[in-house]
C-alpha cells in the first residue's frame, strides 16, 4: 500500500521534472531593452558592413566576431573607418552574447551562446561572403 503510494508520488515527480526540462528548452529570453538596443545598433551598422562582406574585405570569424580579412580590398583612405566599424561591431557582439546570458540568469552560458551565434552567423551568411572554418582558415561561402 505504502509502496504503491510512493510509486505514484515518484511518478508524478518524474513527470514534473520532465516538464521542467521541456520548459527550460522552450525559449531563451532575448526581449530586454539592452538586447534590443544592441540589435538596433548592429542593424544600422550592417548597412556599412554589408558591402565589406561582399567585397571580402571583412569576414565572419569562427568565434562569433568579424575581422578585416583583406585590407587591400579597401581604399587606403577608408581603412581606418573600416577598422573602426569592425571594432564597434565586435564590441556590440560581445555585449550581445553577455546580455543574453545575463537575461537568462546564466552568465556561464556566454561562451556557449557565442559558439551558437558563430555557427548561425556563418550558416545565414550570403553566398560569396568569407568566414573562418573550424581550423581558422578563411573560406568563401
Amino acid at each position, binding site marked *: 500500500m*505504502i509502496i504503491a503510494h*510512493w510509486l505514484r508520488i*515518484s511518478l508524478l*515527480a518524474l513527470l514534473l*521534472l520532465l516538464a*521542467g*526540462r521541456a520548459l*527550460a*528548452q*522552450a*525559449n*531563451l529570453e*532575448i526581449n530586454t531593452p539592452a*538586447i534590443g538596443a544592441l*540589435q538596433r545598433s*548592429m*542593424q544600422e551598422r*550592417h548597412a556599412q558592413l554589408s558591402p565589406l562582406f561582399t567585397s571580402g574585405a571583412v569576414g565572419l570569424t569562427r568565434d562569433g566576431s568579424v575581422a578585416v580579412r583583406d585590407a587591400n580590398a579597401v581604399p587606403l583612405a577608408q581603412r581606418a573607418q573600416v577598422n573602426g566599424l569592425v571594432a564597434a561591431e565586435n564590441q556590440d557582439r560581445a555585449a*550581445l552574447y553577455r546580455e*543574453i546570458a545575463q537575461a537568462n540568469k546564466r552568465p556561464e*552560458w556566454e561562451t*556557449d*551562446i557565442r559558439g*551558437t*551565434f558563430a*555557427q*548561425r*552567423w556563418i550558416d*545565414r551568411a550570403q553566398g560569396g561572403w568569407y568566414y573562418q572554418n573550424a581550423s581558422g582558415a578563411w573560406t568563401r561561402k
Partner: protein
Amino acid sequence: MRRSGLSIITAIFGACSLGACVTINIYFPAAAAERAADRIIEEVWQLKPEAGKPQSSKPASQ
C-alpha cells in the same frame, strides 16, 4: 521497521530529485539558443525567416 524503510526511500528519492535539479540547471539549451540566434540575426541582417522554421514576431518584408 516500516518507518525506517520509508525514510530510506524518502532519502533516496530526495537525493535523486536534487541531482536532477542540478543537471537541469547546468544544461545548455542548444536548440533554444539556436532559435534565439536566428531571430536576432534575421533582425540585424534583415533576413526572412528560414523555410521550415516558422517565426512569430513580424512578417519579414523585402
